[in-house]
Every structure is written in C-alpha cells, then in structure tokens.
C-alpha cells in the first residue's frame, strides 16, 4: 500500500484562509467599537443640541471641528454685536441723564423765579450750558431793603444742591438807594456728565 497525501499541495492555501478569517474575527470587535463610538458621538451631539438651544441651529451632520469652528465664528459676531449694543445703551443712558440734568437746572430757575418774582427782581446776565463743562449762571437778585435776605438766590442754591449738584458761588452785595442788589455767579460741577 502506497501512502499518498492528497492535500499536500492544498495545505498552504488552507493556512492563508485561516489567517484571513482570524484577522477578520480580530477586526470585528474593533469595527463594532468604532460603531459604538459613532453612536456615542451622535448621542453627545443630540445632548448638546438639547442643552444649548441657541447653538442648536449650527449643529448639523458635519464634522465636529467644522461645527465648533462655525459656532466660534457666530460667537465672535454675537459678542461684537452685544458690545456695540451695550455701548449704544450707555450712550443713551448718559444722554438721558445729561438731558435730565439740563432740564432740572433750567426748571429750578423757573420754579424759584415764579416763587419770588412778586417780592424780588431777578435779572439774568449770563447762562452757559455746555456738555462736558461746568454749568454757569450769573444773575442779579434785587429786593427791597425791608427784606434781609435774597430768597430767590438762597432757594435756588438749595434746590440745586438737593438735586445733587455741587456748586461754587461768587457773590457781591451792593447797597443801592432803597434796594439790596445781590450779584451772584453760580458754577455747577457738571463737567463729568
């Protein structure tokens, strides 16, 4: 009896197939894990979309880096717009405060004039209101010698100080026949407005 190996030539071919199958089996969990990672990625993206409602518009199917870059670019725009708006709000606030300040300054002059015009005479000599500078007022307050003080002037200064204005005054009293003349200069510290 002769011993003949019928698979002698087939043996190496069978080994290569085994190796290929083995490689495929080995790669299978790797591929499965890769799929799991992709699922984790999608879950995370969905979570971020749900958590941050304003950023959701920019989260699509693109690469995460592209999405991040897009949101960063939009963020820069939003920050810039916000800064512009905030600056505009500050400007408007300052303007309104300044407008209120000038209104009060003039309004008090009218109020005190109406209160004391029956007994005192008031002559306005100069008025200077300029933004960024101190307000200036120069007037003459005349009353009869029967009255000791100049009510208009006293009350005007009190009212300005009550309104929060810091004042410096310069006054000269003149005795003139039957009247007392008070020449007064008021400077209100308003340069900071």
């Amino acid at each position, binding site marked *: 009896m002769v011993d003949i190996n019928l698979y002698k030539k087939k043996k190496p071919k069978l080994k290569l197939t085994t190796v290929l199958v083995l490689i495929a089996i080995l790669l299978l969990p790797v591929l499965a894990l890769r799929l799991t990672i992709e699922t984790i990625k999608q879950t995370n993206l969905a979570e*971020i979309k749900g958590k941050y409602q*304003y950023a959701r518009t920019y989260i699509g199917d693109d690469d995460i880096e592209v999405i991040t870059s897009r949101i960063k670019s939009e963020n820069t725009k939003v920050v810039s717009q916000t800064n512009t*708006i905030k600056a505009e709000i500050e400007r408007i606030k300052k*303007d309104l405060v300044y*407008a209120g300040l000038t209104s009060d300054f003039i309004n008090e002059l009218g109020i005190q004039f109406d209160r004391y015009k029956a007994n005192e005479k008031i002559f306005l000599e100069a008025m200077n209101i300029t933004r960024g500078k101190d307000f200036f007022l120069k007037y003459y307050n005349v009353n009869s010698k029967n009255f000791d003080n100049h009510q208009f002037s006293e009350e005007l200064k009190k009212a300005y100080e009550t309104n929060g204005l810091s004042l410096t005054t310069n006054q000269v009293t003149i005795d003139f026949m039957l*009247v007392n003349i008070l020449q007064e200069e008021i400077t209100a510290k308003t340069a900071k407005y």
Partner: protein
Amino acid sequence: MNKIGVNRIWGIIIALVILITAFVLFNLLTYLKMDRQIKDLEQTAMTYNTNYKIFLEASGNLRDYNKQVSEKAYEMEELEKMMKMIVLNYRKNGSKIIFTGAVNPEQFSNILNYISNAKTLKINKLDAQSQAELPLLIGESDTPDMYIKELEIELIQINDKILEG
C-alpha cells in the same frame, strides 16, 4: 511547544499586533479625538448660549430705550413749531437745532420753559448773555434782551443700524 509550532506562534503574535494596532488606531485614538472635540464643542456651545442670552437681553434693553425715546420724539417737532411761532430763525442739522441771535425775555423764557420739560432733548450748547449793562438797568422796569451766542439742542436718538442688528 513543538506541537504548536513556531509559525503558528508568529501568526498569533502578528494577529495580536494587528488587533492592538487596529484598536489603538480605530478606537482609542478616534475615541480620544472625539471626546476632546465633543468637550470643545460643548464648551463653545455653552459660551455661545450664554453670550446669545446676553445679546438678547441687551437687545431687549435697547428696544425698551428706543420705545421710551420714540414716544417722546415729538418733542423736537414741538420745539421747532414753537421756535417758528416765536419767529426765531433756527437752522436744522440732522437731529439738531442750532440758533444764534438776540431774543427778547419772553422768547428766551419760552425756549427755557420748553426745554425744562422735555425728556429727550439735550442742550449741547447754550451760551446766552444779557445785551445790556445790567446794573444800570436795575431801576428800570423792562428786562433787557438776551443775546444767544450759540444754542444747540439735539434730540436723543438711537442708532437705527444698531437697533436693526
């Protein structure tokens, strides 16, 4: 050992190397990269969300101011009407009214009264001086005229471009 064979051992080693390399390349590195990107994205989205909320709040504030200011926008038109009525030749420059000239006490009082009640008009400049040597006129009943060297009144306005965003 002889039973397994050297080639088979090499095969197992190569297979393990392929497995580990594939794991590192396709899983570990990918996962680490994805994790870093997700963290970065979350951080960016959070920052954007916060900044967008601040933007919405600031926009809302600006709209509120605009509403307040717009409601009083008639003040400038009223001032113009009044100045026309008391015959003052003012100049208009955008949202500004500019005037130079002599005014009698009544006209001056009218202007001051109006401005003192306005909320959206700001006096950029008012330089007024009596036209007479006052101490000499004190005994007289008439109040002297005032000379306005410069009067500039401006309407407070919000920049439309910023408002529209």
